[in-house]
């Protein structure tokens, strides 16, 4: 077993290359992003058993273990149910670069939906944000949309 540790003689080997992946969004997830591109609106999906509307729409209700089919049109507004202003630096595994801070991570209950949607809020002063505030999605310009979560730029606070 090691006792004294002479750190100056100990080496580490670095790996810092990107490892590409290609993830399938699925039928209803693809529809969600296409609705944003084509109509700048959200759709959710209703569980026939518990009646809960999920956003983003997915194929299965976990608690009921039921297959879902009924898409529901939703508003682009919602209510902020929780948030956190992120102040510490870390490398973003999406980009390999440090994620810009501060930014505000928010949980949004989109009007007409029963689940909560996570995204960013364009306000980083914690004093100016309160749980319960109304928010609205702000989309990218249509020409810039790529069919991913960043087609929503952020959610803006409505009643500051």
């Amino acid at each position, binding site marked *: 077993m090691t006792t004294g540790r002479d750190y100056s003689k100990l080496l580490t080997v670095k790996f810092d290359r990107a490892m590409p992946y290609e993830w399938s969004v699925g039928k209803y997830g693809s529809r969600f992003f296409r609705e944003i591109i084509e109509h700048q609106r959200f759709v959710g999906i209703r569980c026939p058993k518990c009646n809960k509307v999920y956003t983003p729409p997915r194929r299965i209700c976990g608690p009921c273990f039921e297959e879902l089919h009924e898409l529901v049109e939703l508003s682009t507004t919602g209510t902020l149910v929780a948030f956190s202003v992120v102040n510490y630096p870390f490398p973003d595994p*999406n980009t390999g670069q440090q994620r810009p801070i501060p930014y505000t*991570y928010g949980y949004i209950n989109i009007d007409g939906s029963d689940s909560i949607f996570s995204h960013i809020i364009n306000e980083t002063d914690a004093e100016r944000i309160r749980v319960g505030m109304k928010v609205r999605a702000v989309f990218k310009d249509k020409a810039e949309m790529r069919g991913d979560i960043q087609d929503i730029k952020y959610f803006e606070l409505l009643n500051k």
Partner: protein
Amino acid sequence: MARRVAIVGTGQTDHCSHRPDVDGREMIHEAVIRALDDCELTIRDIDAIVIGNMDHFESINYVDTWSVEGSGGVMKPIMKITTGGTTGTSVAIAAYYHVASGLFDRVLAIGWEKNSESDTTAAIITCSDPIWDRFSYSGAIPSLATEAVGYMNRSGATQEDAARVAVRDRTHALNNPHAHLRKPITVQDVMDSPMLAYPIKLLDVCPRTDGACAVVFAAEGTAEKIAPKPAWIKSCAVRHSITWFGDFDFNAGLMSLQRAAKEAFDRAGIKNPVEDLDVAELYLPYSYAGLKWIEDLGFCGPGEAPEFVGEGNTDMGGKIPINPSGGVISTNCIGATALIRVAEAAIQVMGKGGKRQVPDVVNALATGFGGCFWSDVVVMSTQRPY
């Protein structure tokens, strides 16, 4: 019918922030040797091994085979289990299942992590959904921060109340030679530390640690011959809920812990946890959990935790000492963290705690936390279960 099972030996590394003097296998080996020494067995006495870590932290995806020279798994049945923060309790519970099934008499559970080998926050982000959550998610701290804000709004708890939990755990760590952070802190130190994500400050959260833990489980008939005072597993329960972050109800309390604790306590005959348990090693990754989650465990009523903790009930010498080891806020080698809770609870039952020993322990509780607000609960005892 399940066989009765006990923990007969435990081993841990001397945890610290960076161990460039060992690779993962060598670090695992240190813990395994200490566990075997603790119960005077050799690796030849071990029938099977369950091992776990957060495999994306070191980017080694076949840890079970990669680590055999360290774990002692050459030509033995070995499997890997990875469930996020609960990995350590998952390997413990799986080792228990192995022995309880009657197929194996002596099984080794191992948890380990070299947190220094990657960025913990970036690695945790890769646990989240790549299409929906990874873009905005920023690791464990902000999701816990949102939980803390909800708890403070409902209960009136203050940041100072939470800081008291961190002070307790860091004070207890002074008694534990294996703990990573062994410097005392005050409530003021916590309040003055940098704000990471409101209301969580640097000293409210766990560190990043390199370390490993190993625990030997044995069947009734064998266990009593190995250990003079084995730690019998009375019950365990697992509740792993949904993984869509948005589906978690922050206002409902930690439902997975409420339900896992209810099942484990019912099966172990624990009616009043504060009176019936003698010590608890809880997976509390941040200070606010030391308030909210002890309410979910039924240690006190909703909103009562600040007073319950403030009065010293969870300190050494209190009604129900929590984390004599110093807990997760003092040591967090993530894949080992929940197994350390199990090991430390077993140490208390076996009476091997040295300076951190709570006197006359009969029943001890260990918990695991991780994933998307998942919980595991293990109750052990000096008394053999019925």
